[in-house]
């Protein structure tokens, strides 16, 4: 089945007879090379198949296990505090939206209605992350699940806010973390009880986000009504590690509610007045989700607590990250 059709190279009939075994040997070698080639291709394709978009690489692996001050390297890189960095926001009402007579930088989409500048919204008790979700935390998720990611999402140090993730990536992280916290014995008891009672780890609604950022006294910025340098990372060229700015006056002691990276919410972008029952029945338009807080690249107007940005759910960007919320059933 593997001999040659032609005579041997450069020879006559006799030479052909003499070199026939060599030809057959050559054919056998060729057959073996073909088999080796196919085997190599199969093994290589197997490896490439796993690589697909981008799977966890060494960097993600290293990041996920690296020790960072204030975070637990052996527990999903979560903040090292009794509630894993979750801060309780007590139930109650707050002022949402902007009053242009007080805030000259207010945008039109921050107006409550045609007749009203701001609205009062009442929220039940909930918890929100003190920090934005970090590269280290997201790397732990990627490492555990093989979730596809852009290399740039994990290129910063583990204590930087994760960026270059989509809205759907953020939700996938939330779902995964919820299951991890439910299953882990290291989850603080109070937190586990909440989760067992039906509380969910997810993205904040824009109302939850805004109340946490400006408190119940309607501040323009998390620290008060006047812009102050040194409380937030804005107008700069890059993000900074989470919690880099000491802001004792900031609402509820939260970090980076202004600047650093925009934070995704689970509210669809639609005109005010805000309703606790977001209108999910109107499904005809293109999806656009609210993001809050501005980023390091923005100026003072965009890091106000009431600013509402809109983002496509598939967009990845250096300036967009997210923060977690724990919300009741």
């Amino acid at each position: 089945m593997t001999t040659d059709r032609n005579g041997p190279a450069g020879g006559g009939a006799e030479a052909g007879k003499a070199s026939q075994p060599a030809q057959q040997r050559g054919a056998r070698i060729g057959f073996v090379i073909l088999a080796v080639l196919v085997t190599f291709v199969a093994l290589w394709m197997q490896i490439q198949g796993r690589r697909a978009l981008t799977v966890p690489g060494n960097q993600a692996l290293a990041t996920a296990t690296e020790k960072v001050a204030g975070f637990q390297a052996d527990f999903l890189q979560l903040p090292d505090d009794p509630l894993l960095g979750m801060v309780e926001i007590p139930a109650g009402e707050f002022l949402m939206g902007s009053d242009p007579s007080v805030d000259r930088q207010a945008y039109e989409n921050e107006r409550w209605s045609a007749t009203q500048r701001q609205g009062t919204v009442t929220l039940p008790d909930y918890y929100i992350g003190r920090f934005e979700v970090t590269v280290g935390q997201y790397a732990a998720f990627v490492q555990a699940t093989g979730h596809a990611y852009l290399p740039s999402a994990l290129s910063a140090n583990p204590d930087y806010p994760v960026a270059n993730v989509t809205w759907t990536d953020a939700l996938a992280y939330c779902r995964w973390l919820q299951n991890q916290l439910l299953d882990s014995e290291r989850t603080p008891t109070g937190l586990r009880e909440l989760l067992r009672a039906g509380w969910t780890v997810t993205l904040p609604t824009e109302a939850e986000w805004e109340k946490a950022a400006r408190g119940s006294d309607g501040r323009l910025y998390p620290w008060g009504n006047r812009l102050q340098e040194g409380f937030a990372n804005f107008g700069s060229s890059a993000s900074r590690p989470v919690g880099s700015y000491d802001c004792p006056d900031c609402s509820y002691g939260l970090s980076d509610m202004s600047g650093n990276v925009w934070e995704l919410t689970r509210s669809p972008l639609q005109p005010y007045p805000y309703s606790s029952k977001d209108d999910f029945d109107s499904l005809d338009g293109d999806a656009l989700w609210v993001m809050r807080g501005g980023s390091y690249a923005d100026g003072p107007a965009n890091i106000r607590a009431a600013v509402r940005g809109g983002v496509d759910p598939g967009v990845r960007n250096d300036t967009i990250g997210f923060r977690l919320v724990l919300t009741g059933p």
Partner: protein
Amino acid sequence: MASGRKNRSHKSSSTIQMTAGGSAAAVQQVQSSLQPLLFPLLLAAALFTVSMNPRIQQNLVLTWSFWAAALFIMAWLGVLFASLRQSGASRSFEIVLRPQHYIQAMVQCSLFLYWGYYWQPVYAHLWLLVGQLLFAYSFDILLAWSRRESYTLGFGPIPIIFSINLFLWFRDDWFYMQFLMIGAGFMGKEFVRWQRDGRRVHIFNPSAFALGLFSVVLIATGTTNLTWGREIASTLTLAPNIYTFLFILGLVVMYFFSITLVAGTAAIVLFGLSALYSATTGVPYFIDSEIPAAVFLGLHLLITDPSTSPRTPLGKLAFGALYGLGVFGLYSLLGVLGVPTFYDKLLCVPLLNLSVIAIDRAVNSINNVGLVNVWNSHWQRIRPNLVHMAIWIVVFGTMSLLGKTDGRHTGDSVPFWQQACADGLSNSCSRLLQLESTYCGDNSAWACNELGIHYLEGRIVEPDQDLAMGYLSRACELKFQAGCVNLLEPSEVAHGNPRELDLRLMLRQGGLNLMEMPTRDLYSRACEHGWEFACDSLVASL
């Protein structure tokens, strides 16, 4: 050494020679010593030059794939050169221009031009095709010269490369695999041989061998997404009247090479089985046509290589029928295994190639010439192939008149499959999933959302939370609001109507590019396909 130097002068002569098949071939013999080795060197240099093209430079892996291929050729050439110098042996060309090569190449080329006009990636693939041709020629030459003195230079590698590229090519990041696939094809041709009718010939059609082998690897490793295979199989129908176009191209090949019995029988068997299935179950067998366009292409250009198909008329008939049965069976089998079904037309060709001797032997006892050419006693002067062609033309014409080729196909309509699935008709739910999966792959957010819901609810498919979330995420990232809402609240499933872009993707009806279609016409088309919301929208706009 001395004889090597002595032979360095060129001698050439030009003649016309009849090939084994009886067709005319231009033959020119060029004798030399080591000077012919310059030719593959030039080809390798050309391959390197082509790699400088912006299309190839835009991707680093692609560029390196070309460079590696060129370096491989040069290294092989260097080793061959050194070995020949040492032994004093010489190498030469024999130029043979066989019609079965250049006619097939022209037919394939015209198909690339027509298809590429409606699907731009084909034209973007042009330089990659040139690179493959350069590599194929140099590989084939070096393989031949490593084993014997003379290489038969002609158009042989062109139809092999074109044929491979009509069915499968790797994405830029894995393009080096394309060169390996070509290498495997030529090695199969050179090393996997048998004795047939007193001659040692290759067993497998080289392109079908390479395609079959790599298809198995891609299926086994689950790496189909590293290739353009799925897109290639589905985008042929973007070219309008593709069946008629393929039919006409097929007639050219049939006229010159008497392959009508193979191609025609395969088509008739597939049409027949498809019709039988529809009549029995109430649903079409193939999703988008009576015979998928890529299968129709395969039965004209992939299984009709005279040297790897039976030589007797009844053998050809059986070969075609077996191909039809093979594709029909594999389509279901692959579907059941959850493997992309477009491999159906590729996987059975090597197996059929292996069976040609058995087929010829089995039909030898029958008076096959008399059986297939029964009219011969009455119309002695008519070439049997012309009669076979006439029958095929009538069959295809009838199928076209019945709307079974380029016309609208029931299986193309999602509402049809939704209803069939709801009615519990055979296989209809899996076909619905398959169809939605294809459309989701085409970036129809609506289809992704529906798929996600199926996997979430688990009514027509085994529930799979991860898969569901994956599809819903895709729908959401394509800005389909219902998909995002389902991600947030999986317990309260939200459906949405297809958007305009979804309709443009889902209503191609096995042919047209609808991207420029006016909205009203689009909705009218959607209404014809059974989309009630589109009918309502049309009524509301009156």
